[in-house]
């Protein structure tokens, strides 16, 4: 089963000065897996995504990326304020001189409808709400059906109805997509993830790799207390 490995992380450590954020973290991601990274706030989820994206060097350990280079969707939309919604969405294609096919244009229109952005393609980011900006960033990242996506709290400013519609659209149009996404919103996990990397402490180390069902059952038993789930896994 080593063949379908897309990402291998071995003994990854990250320190900022004397503060150790990630301790000897090891895990594997297989092709087509959608993995939720569930950990308390400030535990290093964003740092891990940044390291996997190549934006931050690890202090030690290694990352073996076997698949394609991942697309990153950040916690903040990072849109270009002087470009319209449409120009922002097509920017990655324009930068790589890819002229969109008819199929891709159709996919773009579908995304606009799912995200309810059809009427604002010629608006600038400052004319949009926080949720609309995040949806634009999501379309920009997901258009073209990328094989591997890293998402850092991708739905944090999007309402529940839109969030469900977007997730369903991802699953319909790109079911083979490998994804790692961070969240501290429990509702998102069963919607998108197939498994959960759960970290119990305030730094990332020794994750428990759980199925979504197992994670949910633990969660309902522990009366919504992550620390309690942690001890349940340890026992």
């Amino acid at each position, binding site marked *: 089963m080593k063949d379908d490995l897309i990402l291998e992380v071995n003994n990854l450590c990250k320190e900022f000065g004397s503060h150790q954020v990630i301790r000897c973290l090891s895990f594997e991601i297989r092709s087509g897996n959608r993995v939720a990274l569930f950990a308390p706030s400030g535990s290093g989820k964003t740092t891990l995504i940044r390291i996997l*994206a190549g934006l931050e060097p690890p202090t030690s350990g290694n990352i073996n990326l076997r698949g394609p*280079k991942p697309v990153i969707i950040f916690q903040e939309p990072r849109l*270009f*304020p002087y470009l319209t919604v449409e120009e922002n969405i097509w920017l990655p294609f324009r*930068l790589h001189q890819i002229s969109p096919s008819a199929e891709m244009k159709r996919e773009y229109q579908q995304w606009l409808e799912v995200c309810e952005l059809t009427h604002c393609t010629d608006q600038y980011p*400052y004319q949009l709400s926080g949720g609309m900006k995040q949806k634009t960033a999501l379309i920009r990242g997901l258009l073209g059906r990328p094989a591997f996506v890293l998402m850092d709290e991708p739905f944090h400013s999007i309402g529940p109805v839109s969030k469900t519609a977007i997730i369903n659209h991802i699953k319909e149009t790109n079911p083979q997509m490998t994804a790692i996404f961070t969240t501290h919103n429990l509702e998102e996990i069963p919607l998108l993830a197939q498994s959960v990397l759960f970290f119990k402490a305030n730094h990332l180390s020794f994750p428990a790799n759980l199925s979504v069902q197992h994670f949910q059952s633990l969660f309902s038993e522990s009366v919504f207390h992550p620390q309690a789930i942690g001890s349940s896994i340890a026992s």
Partner: protein
Amino acid sequence: MKPSRIFISSLLNEAFGVLLIIAVWEGVSLFYPSYIIPSPAAVVTGISALLTVDFAHHLWITACRIIAGFLIAFGIGTLSGVAAAVMKITKPVNSLMVALQVVPGTILGVVFLLMFGIGSSTPILLVAVLTLPTLAINTINGMAKRNIAQEEYLKTLQCSRWQVARLSYIPALIPVLQSNLSLGMSMAVKVVVLGEFIGSQDGLGYLLNHARIMFNMKEVFFYLLVLMLFTLLFQALQSSVFSTFLRKYYFPE
């Protein structure tokens, strides 16, 4: 909006400041005899006598000196500010520019006069050297406001350096360029007069100095008015160019 309408609108906006100064000047002139502060009306009525071919020649020379000195300052000041930001050496460059700003213009003017003699070199160099630090500091401050998060996003797309420059550096630079043009030109107009006072026998600064020595205050105020109108025209022009072609780079934070 048509470019011509944008230009007229910019001109009217810029004219407000000049009209305000003229109104204050009119008010102050009521309390002083005309040989100290002549009224704007008195200056305007005497204009026809001053508008000669000789005046046009002096005006042309001054305009050329302003533009030459300003272009040197604008080019070097903006480039050094950008280079400092790119090479992450903003602190030493900033302190060098602050040190340069402290040098008094009159001393520098005399030094240039001794070095290059009477002519265009002194006013041009004075404009360049005295305007440059302000523009470099302004550029450094502007570049510090560029969006690092966007640059990081571009990095994840494996963009080339040129693409990062085009999408992040240049858009951050556009408002800076406009303030550099606006700030730099006003300074250049002021400094060229000093340069022509010290080291020249032609130009509006020379005429101003001559009129001042002769206590011909109507002429002095006329030349000041001309310099003010020159600046106004430039500001209206640059403002309408930016509003017409680069409007999208001005967005609310």
